[in-house]
């Protein structure tokens, strides 16, 4: 099994980037999750636990504070991820919202590769703009 942690010696582009995906049950949540995992596999960052921050797990909150960038992929305008980070008062955060890409939030429908690719592309744009 590959090392699931990222040592600062070999982090993406020298930065510690943590990736969080919407954990809902809709299609846009599934896209957010797939996109975050793909970005992690491509070495763009390390996927981390949004629920852990929502639950105020101290060790996880500390890591979010210490990260160079936290990239939060929310599924829809409810913006649960954004609200979690705002509650913690963290400023080292970038946000992507799947429905902003013109994708409609639905339940029980399969997601497509092209939709996931669109989310991944938006995330890369966001990270590259830093």
């Amino acid at each position: 099994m590959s090392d699931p942690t990222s040592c600062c010696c070999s982090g993406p582009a020298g930065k510690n980037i943590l990736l969080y995906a919407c954990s809902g049950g809709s299609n846009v949540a599934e896209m957010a999750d797939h996109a975050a995992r793909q970005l992690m596999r491509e070495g763009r960052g390390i996927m981390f636990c949004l629920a852990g921050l929502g639950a105020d797990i101290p060790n996880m909150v500390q890591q979010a504070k210490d990260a160079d960038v936290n990239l939060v992929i929310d599924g829809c305008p409810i913006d649960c991820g954004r609200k979690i980070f705002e509650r913690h008062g963290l400023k080292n955060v970038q946000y992507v919202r799947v429905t902003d890409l013109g994708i409609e939030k639905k339940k029980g429908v399969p997601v497509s590769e092209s939709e996931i690719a669109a989310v991944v592309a938006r995330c890369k744009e966001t990270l590259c703009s830093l």
Partner: protein
Amino acid sequence: MKKLQILGPGCPKCKMLAANTEVAAKALGLDYELVKITDITEIMKFGVMITPALAVDGVVKSAGKVLSPDEIKKLIQ
């Protein structure tokens, strides 16, 4: 006794964080035990995904950074 835990696979930056932590602990005159945790499974039990990390008695104080002895002093006092 405080348990100062260095979480990391053993890269040069992990070793530097351990060394700086030892310097800080000695400068403060702490009663401490320095523990290096290199096993990934054990590291992940702390919820740590970016290393090196410094924990004090199981509580993560810093992750993904090589802190200076002065910075560490503030975290382990």
